[in-house]
């Protein structure tokens, strides 16, 4: 079947939501005003671990404008625990508080000012308990238990049978292969070290915002959420409602990066709105969002054994992830971290354990490229050190040991589906790998590094989509992917337009409303283009089938002689019927619509984490840095990444994903760090103390290239992107700094930390 004219698939078409956003007219949750809407304010615990003795809300309730005050006493008619992995979190603190900032009560009032004032009038008394504010204290003998009882598994952990709790360890992931004891005995070189990765904040510019409104036993939530269908499920279970009595509407998101994945402020907002009997909005301040979710801090030990010729023999890794007071997505983050420990190499022997640890700090969840970002810089810095000690080229040792397409990555899982050698060679080339070392100033040194890794991507492969074509030829894509800035609505429209040969301006995708939008598991794990996009492709193909059948009947032509052309179908004789004419012909009047449904579900398995992933996302980067020996300041001069996407539906948007991930990687590597005091208090909870990259932080050269090998399981051979660079860039920077003579085992690479290391190593 020949096709005339360019398909929008593979074209850098302009963003569909661009004009709306440029005009300030894109609606975010915080822009919505419902009639009678109240404003919520949260009373946060001032202490990290305590029994709640009393919460006196009488004065707050008497405050002008206050409509309702919610405490755990208001939840006695429901099972008030939620958590998609572990149902360990009460809607508001129940009996005890477990971190500084935990919601203890919520006020709903006519104005935000009245709500804030009323919160200050709530008198809560606490009986403080010993604190486990870090992984170290939480794992100590006789450590205080953050949770006395093992929580029930949540509905969407997807990790098989969860083991019993062990002290403050809420989940462990491990795998072994071969004989590591023998590997380390046979090794010509062993590299080992202890490493620290800081807690960091996703920092989407829009904070978590939710509005809840109960009507007739149903609840509607407008929420800045990435996974509306999983939120719907958790709210339904919490309040004992059928799924269809919970409606989640998702406006535009002002960034997500994982911070708005799973369930966040929705239970609290639904609970206070239920009590108030009116719509209530909770709009987090930044300091509130920073204690709503963050990236896991981590400590890890790793050992790598290699033979004299550079052949990798074995690796051991132990990692402890600080999940904070509630598990959130910690178990999955922990498993993904474990999977990232070996790196994509051929290993005769492996011994990996990753543990998810409760502490009395704010909860940790998903942040772009979780797990891989935690481990790749460690794994790759050990590989570089092996090469250095053996006098081998750092690219050669990768070429020698990297997995090739089709090779097993982990037992029982999907084999490798990417050309890693090609990708890492390209990343190296783009930071000038083959160029002679640049001369540095006397007190400055330069170095280059590369890194390569894999991220288990796609999450659970369940997505539905519907494509509608109206009698004017306009096309609507209904799918549950959340537009959070990545351009999903544009890409989904391109996929449908590509199948239907409909002009882009005729195709639109809008936000999710779970009452009407078909199910999609989630927007995360780089899955939308691959999994949801495949559902859209299949739905559009159904509509196309209908168009062809109609054309065959109306043009009295054999279907095999019909060909789709832009906006219509043409027969061999050159007669064309437009989409509008075909839909009208189908129904005999100016009405009706063609409907296509697409479904993606696990094929040949359960879709479980063990059998996955849907695809392996490639995490490849190169970096060139300069370090000032007198100040410890690290300047990133060049970065390169390779988006190994199978097929770029919209190359420009792919590049934007990698640029954004590169800069987040730079921030994670160089300066982003949440500081918790020993008493569990977050010390830098605004942009005054927590810095994210700005215009002047970008490298002089940032090269984001795209590899298109058509090897993805998604539509047109596509696979996802947008996370890998975040895992790969910090690793490349760490390796470049080691190449300049300053190996580091602690992130971020702040000037002070690097300066101390320079002194310690007596570099001059």
């Amino acid at each position: 079947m020949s096709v005339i004219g360019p398909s929008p698939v593979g074209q850098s078409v302009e963003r569909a939501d661009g004009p709306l956003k440029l005009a300030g007219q894109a609606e975010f949750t915080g822009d919505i005003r419902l009639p009678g809407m109240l404003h919520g304010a949260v009373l946060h615990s001032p202490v990290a671990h305590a029994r709640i003795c009393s919460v006196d809300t009488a004065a707050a309730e008497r405050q002008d404008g206050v409509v309702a005050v919610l405490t755990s006493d208001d939840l006695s008619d429901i099972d008030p625990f939620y958590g998609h992995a572990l149902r360990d979190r009460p809607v508001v603190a129940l009996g005890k508080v477990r971190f500084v900032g935990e919601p203890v009560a919520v006020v709903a009032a006519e104005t935000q000012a009245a709500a804030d004032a009323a919160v200050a009038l709530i008198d809560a008394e606490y009986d403080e308990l010993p604190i486990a504010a870090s992984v170290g204290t939480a794992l100590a003998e006789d450590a205080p238990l953050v949770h006395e009882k093992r929580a029930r598994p949540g509905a969407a952990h997807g990790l098989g049978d969860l083991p019993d709790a062990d002290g403050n360890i809420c989940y462990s992931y491990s795998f072994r292969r071969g004989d590591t004891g023998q590997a380390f005995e046979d090794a010509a070189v062993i590299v080992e070290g202890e490493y620290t990765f800081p807690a960091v904040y996703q920092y989407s510019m829009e904070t978590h915002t939710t509005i809840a409104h109960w009507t007739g036993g149903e609840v509607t939530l407008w929420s800045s959420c990435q996974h509306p269908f999983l939120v719907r499920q958790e709210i339904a279970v919490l309040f004992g409602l059928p799924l269809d009595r919970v409606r989640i509407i998702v406006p535009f998101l002002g960034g997500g990066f994982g911070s708005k994945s799973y369930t966040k402020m929705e239970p609290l907002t639904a609970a206070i709105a239920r009590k108030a009997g009116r719509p209530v909005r909770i709009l987090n301040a930044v300091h509130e969002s920073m204690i709503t979710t963050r990236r896991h801090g981590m400590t890890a030990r790793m050992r790598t054994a290699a033979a004299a010729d550079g052949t990798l023999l074995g690796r051991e890794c132990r990692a402890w992830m600080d999940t904070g007071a509630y598990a959130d997505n910690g178990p999955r983050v922990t498993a993904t971290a474990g999977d990232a420990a070996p790196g994509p190499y051929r290993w005769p022997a492996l011994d990996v354990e990753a543990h998810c640890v409760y502490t009395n700090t704010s909860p940790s969840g998903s942040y772009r490229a979780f797990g891989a970002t935690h481990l790749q810089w460690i794994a790759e810095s050990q590989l570089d050190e092996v090469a250095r000690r053996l006098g081998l080229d750092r690219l050669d040792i990768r070429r020698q040991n990297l997995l090739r397409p089709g090779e097993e990555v982990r037992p029982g899982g999907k084999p490798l589906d990417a050309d890693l050698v090609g990708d890492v060679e390209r990343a190296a080339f783009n930071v000038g790998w083959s160029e002679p070392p640049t001369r540095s100033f006397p007190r400055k040194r330069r170095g280059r590094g590369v890194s390569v890794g894999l991220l288990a991507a796609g999450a659970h492969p369940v997505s539905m989509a519907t494509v509608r074509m109206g009698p004017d030829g306009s096309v609507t894509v209904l799918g549950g992917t959340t537009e959070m800035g990545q351009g999903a609505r544009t890409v989904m429209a391109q996929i449908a337009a590509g199948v239907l040969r409909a002009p882009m301006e005729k195709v639109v995708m809008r936000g999710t409303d779970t009452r009407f939008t078909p199910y999609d598991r989630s927007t995360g794990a780089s899955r939308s283009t691959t999994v949801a996009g495949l559902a859209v492709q299949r739905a559009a193909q159904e509509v196309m089938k209908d168009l062809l059948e109609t054309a065959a009947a109306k043009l009295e032509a054999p279907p095999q002689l019909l060909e789709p052309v832009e906006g219509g179908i043409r027969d061999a004789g050159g007669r064309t019927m437009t989409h509008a004419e075909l839909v009208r012909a189908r129904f005999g009047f100016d009405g009706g619509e063609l409907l296509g449904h697409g479904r993606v579900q696990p094929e040949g398995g359960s879709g479980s984490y063990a059998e996955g992933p849907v695809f392996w996302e490639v995490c490849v980067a190169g970096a060139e840095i300069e370090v000032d020996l007198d100040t410890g300041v690290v300047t990133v001069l060049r970065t390169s990444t390779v988006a190994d996407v199978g097929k770029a539906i919209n190359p420009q948007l792919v590049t934007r994903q990698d640029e954004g991930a590169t800069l987040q990687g730079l921030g994670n590597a160089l300066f982003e760090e949440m500081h918790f005091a020993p008493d569990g208090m977050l010390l830098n909870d605004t942009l005054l103390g927590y810095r994210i990259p700005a215009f002047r932080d970008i490298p002089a050269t940032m090269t984001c290239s795209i590899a298109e090998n058509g090897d993805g399981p998604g539509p047109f051979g596509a696979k996802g992107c947008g996370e890998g660079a975040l895992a790969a860039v910090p690793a490349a920077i760490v390796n470049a700094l080691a190449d300049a003579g300053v190996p580091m085992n602690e992130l971020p690479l702040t000037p002070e930390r690097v300066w101390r290391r320079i002194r310690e190593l007596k570099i001059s």
Partner: protein
Amino acid sequence: MTEMVRATINGKPYAGEVPAQELLLDFLRDRLGLTGTKQSCEVQVCGVCTVLVDGDPVSSCCYLAADIDGREVETIEGLVGSDFHRRASKAFLRHAAVQCGFCTAGMLLTAKALAARGLGGDRAEVAAAMNGNLCRCTGYVSLLDSLVELLDQR
């Protein structure tokens, strides 16, 4: 306590009593319904809530509404329809410099102030001048490409 405010907002006269402690951000969003200006850091760092007061970019999260008395305020709603907005939109769309869109209005208003001050298309100068407008999506490359193109056009 309230204060009488007479100002020009997006070219139209405004007169009214405003609570003395009300922030310009809340005044614009809640009182006037101009929700194109977004709330983010609330500490005058991120630039998301930037509006122009007498042509100068200010963080409306840390500026009292009462202080616009006798001044001209321009928000994204006022910018729309202007030649500058048309040219800026073209550049931003061409470089796909709009992602989540939360920082976009602030970026455009700061850029307009820079253009009015005669800042040209020097990349390093643009980056330095825009350093107070944060974006977490783009990696800034596409924004710089757009802004350099836009500011170079005069």
